[in-house]
């Protein structure tokens, strides 16, 4: 069988920053960021739940703000900063992951990467202890089918408290 040798119209080189790394990759005009991340770059942490902007599983941070990768064309991130769940290992995010782990906030874990990105944006934005209400509002675009959100919300509030404690500690004079 012949494999197709189609060159997609509008194939182009795309340069952007992914999780702190400058990348140049080939993309096609009609390719979504979700497709590029998952199938082009094998960054499979960003999940596909509906592919229509209705579940939030594909939430990534674009220039620091949560957006849906399934409704973003790859070409739209040219020159911009994209952060996915794979980047959440250090600093604030480590506190978030730890809080989620301690609270059993992930059951099946499929929505969790998207939830974490929304939570990360909230904590970065507020940089203080957040309320349950603020957490509810910030996560209202992420559907979770397992948890009833209870432990997720607890974990987000807990992580914000831990971050404030850590920040206070670093501010204290080392004596």
């Amino acid at each position, binding site marked *: 069988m012949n494999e197709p040798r189609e060159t997609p*119209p509008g194939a182009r080189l795309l340069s952007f920053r992914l999780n702190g790394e400058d990348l140049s990759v080939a993309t096609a005009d*009609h390719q979504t960021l979700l497709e590029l991340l998952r199938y082009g770059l094998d960054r499979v942490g960003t999940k596909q739940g509906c592919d*229509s902007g209705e579940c939030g599983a594909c939430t990534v941070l674009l220039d620091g703000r949560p*957006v849906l990768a399934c409704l973003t064309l790859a070409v739209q991130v040219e020159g911009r900063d994209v952060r996915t769940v794979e980047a959440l290992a250090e600093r604030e995010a480590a506190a978030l992951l730890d809080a989620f782990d301690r609270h059993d906030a992930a059951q099946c874990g499929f929505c969790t990467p998207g939830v974490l990105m929304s939570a990360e944006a909230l904590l970065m934005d507020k940089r203080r202890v957040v309320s349950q209400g603020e957490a509810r*509002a910030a996560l209202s*675009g992420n559907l979770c089918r397992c948890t009833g959100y209870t432990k997720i919300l607890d974990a987000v509030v807990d992580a914000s408290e831990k971050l404030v404690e850590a920040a206070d500690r670093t501010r204290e004079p080392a004596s």
Partner: protein
Amino acid sequence: MLPLLRTPVATPHTLEEALSLLAEPGARILAGGTDILPNLKRGLGSPSTLVSLHAVDALRGVSVGDAGLSIGAGTTLTQVATSGDVKRMAPSLAEAAESVASPQIRNMATLGGNVCLDTRCRWVNQSDFWRGALGGCLKSAGMNPEASFAQAGVCHVVPGGKRCVAAISADTVPVLIALDATARVASASGTHRLPLAELYVNDGVQNLALEPGEMLLGVDVPTHAGARRERYVKWRVRGSIDFPLVSAALRFDLDAGALTQARLVVGVLGARPKQVAVQKVALGRPLDQALATELAELAHRQCKPLENVPYEAGHRRHMLRVLVRRAIEALADEA
């Protein structure tokens, strides 16, 4: 993955470039992408080119001038909702922007995109497969003229209807009309303004009075020096990730406690927003309980939701009456 057609995407950096690209037959704008991409993934529409505006900086921003607020079409709904100027000068617009869909969608979607949001109908906003199984309708046939639907000309909402009644579902539109906003529209041949209310025509297939090649640059919301009460209310059953099922924007200008202007604009009825004729009843009166009840009745009488979006039309009509009355009561209490 749902398929996107292999449509070329142009990424202009200036307005001029964008307008000249848009002049190509079949070209369509891609702004936030939160409306057009789900639609295209479901086979609604087949543009020749998508003109992405993400790099056109000139379209973004909120500015305040002598005449009032000026908001670029490329300003995101999050920016509109959180702008201090918008909150101060047009609080109901901030309220409406804040109530759209979900946080992620608001970070992506633009004011221009919301103003130009395609009409919605439960017989249309489905997959290609679903609409094919249905046999199509006025709108899906109108948007995909090449589709081989057996009953291309049928309306499932109004049996025998010849005009599509898909519903205008944009949250910001009723507010902008109530605030007497004007639209700035440009094409390769020039720029003109029109009252926002005139941007909409009564055809759900294409409810925008824009010529091919024309683009919304922004909206201007005039300032009001005197006392004003305004509010946006809507009914939806889910707290987020949901379109309005019925909505209303209210604006009341007062002088010494008496109304000098009154607007009540209702969304999610048919293809364009409905301006309820309230002036005659309202002018000269105080904003009070009696007026709340009367205007709510007026809205109920003049507005007849259709079975074009989910949830019973009769109840949506009932909700309109309740929401309008309660909104006016709350505004009266603010005084």
